[in-house]
């Protein structure tokens, strides 16, 4: 299963994507555990703050779009982990 993080917006308006194939990770169990901690309830989006990022997170059949200021807690953990894993892979 893949987790795909897409970041758009920001002052520069650049589009970046990071993805991790969980089944290929040595610590796939802790990835699964993190996914179970993601909130399932629908959250009203916060009022946009101009030039902040917008994050789209996709995995399994779920797709969540969050303004940067709401990427907190387990969402933040997931996004940071996906980025770090991909950046390490690219390095």
């Amino acid at each position, binding site marked *: 299963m893949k987790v795909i993080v897409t970041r758009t*917006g920001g*002052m520069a308006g650049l589009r970046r994507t990071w993805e991790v194939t969980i089944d290929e990770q040595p610590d796939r169990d802790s990835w699964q555990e993190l996914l179970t901690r993601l909130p399932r309830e629908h959250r009203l989006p916060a009022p946009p*703050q*101009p*030039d*902040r990022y917008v994050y789209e997170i996709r995995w399994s059949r779920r797709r969540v779009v969050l303004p940067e200021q709401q990427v907190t807690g387990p969402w933040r953990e997931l996004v940071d982990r996906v980025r770090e894993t991909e950046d390490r892979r690219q390095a």
Partner: protein
Amino acid sequence: MNCSIVPPYLLQRLASLEDPALAPVAAAARASLQRDVPFRGIRVGEAAPPTTSDRRSTLTTRALRDPDRTIADAGNTEALPGTIVRREGDSAASDPAVNEAYDGLGETHSFFRHVFARASIDDNNLPLAATVHFGDDYDNAFWDGERMVFGDGDGIVFRRMTASLSVIGHELAHGVTQHSANLLYKDQAGALNESVSDVFGALVEQRSLGHSTDEASWLIGLGLFTDEVEGEALRSLKAPGEAYNDDVLGKDPQPAHMRDYVQTSDDNGGVHLNSGIPNHAFYLVAQELGGQAWERAGLIWYTALTNGSLTPTADFAAFATATAAAAIALYGDDSVEHSAVRAGWTGVGVPVGRPAE
């Protein structure tokens, strides 16, 4: 009922006075015209009339106070506001980011004060706040509704975000928009919100450099990219789509014409993409009129933004019509300025309506 003492034709004559000794009179007349346009029978869209406290039909302007700046340091955390490190009147800090933010706030404040007789970003002498060193390798700057926040960049693609006056002006202009038309940050209204910030960001930088339309770079974020990047800046008002073309960043994706409008769910409906279209319209108007772009093209745009003729969900066509109405109010129906505005929008494929009589 609005009782206007000074009739519009007289204000228009005063607004175009060129004698430097009479500059305050011209500025006051322009300020009065900007505020009065909705009440002189030129209504655009369905905006509710501004409240009584917004009405001004005399030649007096609000007290224009000096800036009151506070710069804070987030210490590479994401905690806001951070620790205050420089207050208004303090001498320069040893930290260049702090000084760039302080100076950039000052330049932007000065721009709105001297060019448009606007008292800080809310036109009520709002103190100006900025936070630097936000986050870790944070390649971004933003307006959070109360302050500007700047990252340090990652040093690979981006230098620190305070290094560009057009970026500082862009962020503060989001505050001006918030306190005037309050354009919703989504889809076409959001692209207009972004464009207004690019336009005034560029004009702040042009005025600080003394650049005419021909001399100006018309770039947003010149100086932010490191030498590694194949590109000049984040965006170009003169040539949307040509600001950069880099292996890592890709190619500047901005359209310059409505035929290339990007329908997307990214970026709140592509607000940083489709801003290229109204950006280019502004450039075309400025280029047609020549001289220093903030004086006429900038005044027309500022008038449309602040005179109550826009709703928060205005689309490109509504904004175009508002700028045409502003040009008529300021310079007359058969003026070169009005023609230039119509030609500018036609040039990017946006229809310009006839303002309601």
